[in-house]
């Protein structure tokens, strides 16, 4: 992944608009948060392979990172804290935000094909 270039990512977001696409959306502070710090809360949510069709989407800069909102006919997909992106060899737009130690905090990914459990082609 590399640092988000807003105009580049905006173009990818536009390309997926008005198509049936699959979304991976996730936020996490890790399963061990309250193990290492009693006062911390474990919070997290993910949705994998939600099928949506968005009218349009926008990426907005917040200075340090970015927010992305996708407008659906009946709702929204939203993520905050995104800083890195990759348009991978499977034609998927991957976006993520990491903390100082490089741990993932948030991810929003868009693909025309379902996200797989184990990728079929790049078997080790």
């Amino acid at each position, binding site marked *: *992944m590399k640092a988000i270039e807003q105009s580049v990512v905006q173009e990818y977001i536009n390309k997926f608009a008005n198509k049936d696409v699959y979304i*991976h959306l*996730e936020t*996490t502070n*890790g*399963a*061990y948060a309250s*193990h290492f710090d009693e006062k911390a809360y474990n919070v997290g949510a*993910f949705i994998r392979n939600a099928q949506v069709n968005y009218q349009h989407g926008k990426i907005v800069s917040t200075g340090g990172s970015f927010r992305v909102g996708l407008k659906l006919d009946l709702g929204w997909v939203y993520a905050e804290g995104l800083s*890195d992106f*990759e348009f*991978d060899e*499977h034609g*998927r737009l*991957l976006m*993520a935000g*990491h903390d100082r*130690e*490089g*741990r*993932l*905090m948030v*991810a929003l*990914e868009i693909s025309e094909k379902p*996200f797989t*459990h*184990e*990728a079929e082609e*790049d078997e*080790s």
Partner: protein
Amino acid sequence: MNHKQKHLLVIFPHPDDESFGASGTISKFRDEGVPVTYLCGTLGEMGRNMGSPVFANRETLYNFRKKELNQAARNLDINVELLGYRDKTLEFEPSEELAKHLKDRIELHKATTIITHYPGYGVHPDHDALGRAVVKAVEMIEPGFRPEVWMHAISNDSEKDLGEPDFIFDITPYWERKEAAIRAHLSQADGMMNLIEEQDQASEHYQRLKTEQFYRWIFPTD
């Protein structure tokens, strides 16, 4: 049980659980000539650590972790079998099916000892869920044919609740192998190993890694 060929089955949900939690004990068994198989529940594909500096992303992580696991297994001279579940979801799997799946593997391997997480003291929900499923699986096996089950407890309150563990191994003789196994999990272990190196070798954390301890699970009908 001396006449019987021993087989240690390690059943944890994530690549690296075996290295952090039991690789000293695994090495001890290997040195005694006991075959060891690691049944790894998931590929840890929802892990937060992406390498440091970051080299993986959510969609490539499982691939790195699979390779790392194979490397750790080579270092420890053990076999690995993947159970094929998805990280973070084990507690939501139908528990009967999960237990049956494990029972079949346990019987297939003729396991004589199993190491898994102590249900309720595993900290990570996958640890608790798989430990619980192991108990259920072994309960499905007729008494007399059941392997011993050794539970690895992680949570901070485990000793307060459970008392002294039944097995306490000083794994200093196997430290090099343990460290190599941990280091094989590049995407996950970097931060951890740096932490260890920075720390005073007498620190609690360092000492914790040099001791591996387990509780023997008592089945009511044993």
